[in-house]
């Protein structure tokens, strides 16, 4: 990974601005090239919509894996309700239906001044020249403050795939009176309702499979439940009462993966049967190299997802930090990454055409959370571009202002919502990958 110095930063700013002053077709006789790094919901969607909307734009998607395994619905793979194949998505439709070039490899070095990205593939290094670069690499995890962390012993299962299988197998091996201990990282993290949803479906599994006396201990680094508080408070205190133990203000101090032991500011557990340690998040690799804010994510412009100082480098999805009102952050989710990808694709095409950016921008996130193996809740959040506010209510700038947030009323935490969850997931999968 190339470290980008302040000097390179400044140099690249000037050069990129000069280059972009001319429409790309004047700079070269070839079609404009967009390189997308990361084939999750953000990366797949931006690649698809650039081709759907973008005329002769060439799009290359760089992704290390041949398939993407969605985190969406993956808690139901942990409990054995769904097979892994149900959440496995590939790039065939992007290639054949939209003409996206897919390069299997890992983005290993970035030269923003030269508009070049180096990709390490099975066949060696390749350098890609781009007019615009979109980074959608997802999240990386920070090590615990102390102790020994081994994610094969204490799986996070917060990136779906092998980790999901590990946690599934550990859960299946639980017996009566065993403890399933899980951590909720400090916000912001991927999928705000996800950890609470996991606690619910694991509790439901333990009850269904008659593991008597088995419990789920939720060690939350945050002061309270981060999403769908009505649904999850009810689930923890009523639906799964006696099985789920919820512990707020539990900031991790040290971890020992080998013995499944953890020390937090609120409670310590040693030798748990399962320790599902979900670590603190930060922007992944190549995006993080562009510079991050105090919480570890890359600040971007809300209309274009451009990174400050790099007029043609965009970061979308879980890696980016979108300016928002205090306490009303844009959530990190597959649905939101898809939303941001469309805004980013539109902004890139307008920039290539020499048009002004659209300011009439809205993004949203919506999702369903299983509470049991038969019922689900839902969550909805909407954002529009405009003034954003600090904690005292004073305007602090422009960004994505949250204009609505809501969860399912109690009457809608039911079987219909559970069924709708699959319609929602399949639609989102298709809009992003097919």
């Amino acid at each position: 990974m190339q470290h980008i110095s302040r000097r390179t930063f400044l140099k690249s700013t000037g050069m990129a601005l000069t280059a972009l002053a001319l429409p790309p077709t004047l700079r070269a006789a070839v079609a404009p090239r967009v390189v997308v790094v990361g084939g999750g919901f953000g990366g797949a969607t931006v690649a698809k919509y650039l081709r759907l909307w973008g005329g002769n734009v060439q799009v290359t998607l760089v992704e290390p894996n041949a398939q993407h395994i969605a985190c969406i619905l993956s808690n139901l793979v942990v409990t054995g309700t769904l097979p892994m194949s149900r959440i496995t998505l590939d790039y065939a439709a992007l290639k054949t239906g939209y003409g996206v070039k897919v390069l299997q490899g890992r983005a290993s070095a970035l030269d923003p001044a030269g508009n070049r990205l180096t990709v390490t593939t099975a066949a060696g290094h390749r350098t890609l020249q781009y007019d615009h670069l979109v980074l959608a690499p997802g999240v990386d995890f920070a090590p615990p403050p102390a102790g020994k962390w081994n994610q094969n012993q204490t799986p996070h299962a917060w990136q779906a795939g092998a980790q999901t299988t590990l946690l599934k197998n550990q859960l299946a091996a639980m017996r009566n009176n065993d403890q399933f201990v899980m951590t909720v990282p400090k916000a912001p993290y991927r999928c705000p309702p996800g950890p609470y949803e996991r606690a619910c479906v694991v509790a439901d599994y333990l009850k269904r499979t008659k593991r008597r006396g088995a419990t789920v201990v939720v060690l939350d680094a945050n002061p309270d439940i981060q999403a769908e508080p009505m649904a999850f408070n009810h689930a923890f205190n009523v639906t799964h009462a006696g099985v789920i133990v919820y512990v707020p203000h539990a900031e991790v101090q040290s971890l020992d993966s080998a013995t499944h032991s953890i020390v937090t500011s609120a409670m310590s557990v040693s030798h748990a049967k399962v320790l599902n340690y979900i670590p603190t998040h930060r922007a992944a690799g190549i995006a993080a190299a562009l510079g991050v804010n105090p919480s570890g994510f890359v600040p971007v412009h809300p209309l274009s997802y451009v990174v400050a100082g790099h007029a043609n480098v965009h970061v979308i999805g879980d890696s980016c930090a979108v300016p928002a009102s205090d306490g009303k952050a844009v959530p990190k989710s597959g649905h939101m990454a898809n939303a941001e990808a469309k805004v980013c694709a539109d902004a890139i095409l307008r920039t290539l055409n020499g048009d002004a950016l659209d300011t009439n921008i809205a993004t949203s996130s919506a999702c369903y959370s299983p509470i049991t193996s038969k019922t689900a809740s839902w969550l909805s959040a909407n954002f529009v571009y405009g003034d954003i506010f600090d904690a005292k209510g004073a305007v602090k700038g422009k960004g994505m202002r949250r204009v609505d947030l809501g969860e399912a009323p109690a009457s809608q935490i039911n079987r219909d919502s559970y069924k709708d969850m699959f319609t929602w997931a399949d639609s989102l999968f298709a809009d992003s990958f097919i």
Partner: protein
Amino acid sequence: MLREKFALRHLILSAACGLLAAQPVCAAPPAGRLLAAQSGQCHGANGNGPGFENIAGESAGELYHELLEMKYRTRIENIMDRQARGYSDAQLLSIAKYLARQPGSGD
């Protein structure tokens, strides 16, 4: 069909402009397209599925009326009642007009 039209228009433009002029990369985005694209996560690209109700090709007036009804009803009946609250009336109209022009059955 739409894509073919775009491609054709672009071809004519390219031929007419030659290499000396600043050619557009693609046709200017139609009004409402980006806002309407936020429907895609649950209704498919251009509202034409797969997903919940197919909303492409429904009349703009009908769609706008339904969106307003969802936005303003006091008792939340489903997730879309919340999603509709995330947009101004003008944005909902723009979305409805764009989706009405998309091929689909609007069932």
